[in-house]
């Protein structure tokens, strides 16, 4: 990735920041309840859990792969934790089970893609159906909610003042992922793998090992999201987080990550997560139903990829994110 395209990416992030500021100002002027520390803290719950998954998924998409099974992994982890809680296991054990289930599910995806040579979209549509199917098979129409009281701290607790534990987890993870992708050699290698896997392989990059690790980390973070979400809701149904896979992918793409691989940044993904979360929350504050929001998200998604192409066509030179 050359410098000019990095600058272009930076422009994309400035645009997202601008949107975020406009959102802030307009919601603050439209609703007197918006500019309150606790309201804003509440608003973050709209995106923290999804953003926790969007971070590793961004890396995965930059590396040229995709994972559609993330929401199904949440369901699987949540069911595993629910059953364990019903068997009397305490909070630390539950967290370990949730994270472990997520990691194992991610490793299944990684094995299918690297050892099984299955295209990642096929593999993860399969495991999505499988994981969610297992959740349904185990739970049927039952609900699990015998969680120990201390388990609720992850999704409902606050670290300092109005700073929720969920948001602190996201911030820590974001810093880790940001540094990993943008500072370390491994991060650069992920771009190389996504931009041209064959060239990367011939340059001595263990491409399959990177892919496997990224799928495993995505699974682990899905497990973490399952812990946060289950703890916040205090109950598990097999339909938990239904449809989140597409919302999370939208978040990543809006953040400026290219689905062709090789392009994207962590700040962009975070900004997109905040933009979407705030729009959702703000519209709720203004009594606009959430489904209207989906029109905006859909139109944004298409515009994000269409604008650079149109600009190139009209002005005859690449603008924005296309190099």
């Amino acid at each position: 990735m050359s410098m000019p395209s990095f600058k272009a990416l930076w422009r994309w992030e400035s645009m997202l920041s601008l949107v975020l500021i406009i959102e802030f100002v307009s919601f603050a002027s439209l609703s007197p309840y918006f500019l309150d520390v606790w309201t804003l803290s509440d608003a973050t719950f709209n995106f923290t859990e999804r953003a926790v998954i969007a971070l590793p998924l961004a890396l995965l998409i930059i590396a040229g792969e995709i994972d559609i099974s993330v929401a199904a992994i949440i369901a699987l982890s949540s069911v595993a934790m629910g059953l364990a809680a019903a068997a009397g296991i305490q909070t630390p054990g539950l967290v370990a089970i949730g994270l472990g289930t997520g990691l194992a599910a991610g490793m299944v995806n990684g094995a299918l893609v690297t050892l099984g040579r299955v295209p990642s979209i096929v593999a993860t549509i399969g495991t999505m159906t499988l994981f969610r199917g297992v959740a349904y098979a185990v739970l049927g129409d039952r609900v699990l909610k015998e969680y120990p009281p201390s388990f609720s701290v992850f999704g409902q607790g606050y670290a300092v003042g109005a700073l929720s534990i969920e948001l602190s987890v996201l911030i820590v993870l974001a810093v880790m992922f940001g540094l990993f992708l943008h500072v370390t050699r491994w991060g650069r290698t992920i771009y190389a793998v996504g931009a041209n896997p064959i060239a990367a392989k011939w340059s001595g990059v263990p491409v399959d090992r990177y892919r496997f690790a990224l799928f495993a980390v995505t699974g682990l973070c899905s497990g973490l999201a399952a812990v946060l979400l289950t703890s916040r809701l205090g109950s598990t149904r097999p339909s938990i987080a239904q449809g989140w896979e597409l919302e999370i992918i939208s978040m990543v793409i809006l953040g400026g990550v290219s689905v062709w691989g090789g392009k994207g940044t962590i700040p962009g993904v975070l900004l997109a997560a905040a933009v979407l979360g705030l729009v959702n929350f703000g519209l709720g504050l203004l009594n606009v139903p959430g489904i209207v929001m989906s029109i905006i998200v859909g139109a944004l998604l298409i515009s994000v990829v269409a604008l650079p192409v149109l600009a190139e066509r009209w002005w005859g030179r690449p603008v924005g994110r296309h190099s």
Partner: protein
Amino acid sequence: MMQTSAARRDLALAAIVVLLFVSVTAAFPKFARPGNLAEILDDSAILILLALGQMLVILTRVIDLSIAANLALSGMLVALLNKNYPGLGIGPVLLIAVVSGTLLGAINGLLVWRLKLPPIVVTLGTMSVYRGLIYLLSGGTWVNDNQMSPQFLGFIRYELLGLTLLSWLAIIGVAVFAVSMRYTVLGRNLYTAGGNPSAATYTGIDPGRMQCIAYTICGAIAGLCGYLWVARFAVAYTDIALGFELQVIAACLIGGVAIAGGIGTVAGVVLGCLFIGIIRNALPLIGISPFWQMGINGLVIVVAAVLSARRREQKRAILETQAA
């Protein structure tokens, strides 16, 4: 080579479906009652039609995630039409369902063809937009069966030779697809465009145009299925067929359609749908909770994907040694 390997795969899938059918029948002779078989077909009809449309799209190396949202929007459109003008009869309903579906599909196709946008992003976007439009169109209200005219509800239930008209539509759809995919220029062009886009370009076939045509046909089918769905379940609301797009893709994958494009047969897709339909119908009989259905589908997709990937690897290995 490709033809024979696809035929072999279809044969294997057919054997599995027959085996499944025979073993369920052996345990529960009532399963093979004509009435029950007709019911399985009636249950699978919409899935079969949608999967055939999705097959076209996947053949040309793209994907349509908006197929269920298109279905729901077109379905809501005709449900509202029928509610407000119950005297119109069935003709205009069918026409408007197909036209609306075609337009919605063409939007996907044009964005992918003309702007060369990534198909996943485009159809993910239109999926959200179409879903949201249903809400704007209906104001979030439901259209219930008592607001639908008798013709609207009765058309697909009309029985002809022991099968419902819905089943006949699926049978006609399969026949049309089987013939046109094999014997028409368009059918062959779709395979070529997906099998090898650069070779297709050199022979004068525009792969992008083929993708656009595939999306448009797929949209038309989704629109028709919108009416079928609303009439069959006698209700229309914002969330009908939510998430069904992934089931349709799953049926294609079970049926042996390759996500990399160019490979897939009508027979395979129909068998894939029947496989799902038989399992769905048999599970309650065997005394297994229908909640297992999804898990079984997932397992089948994963196993089928690994098997076909293995076969592809072997073939590629041969090609590479020859080239070296």
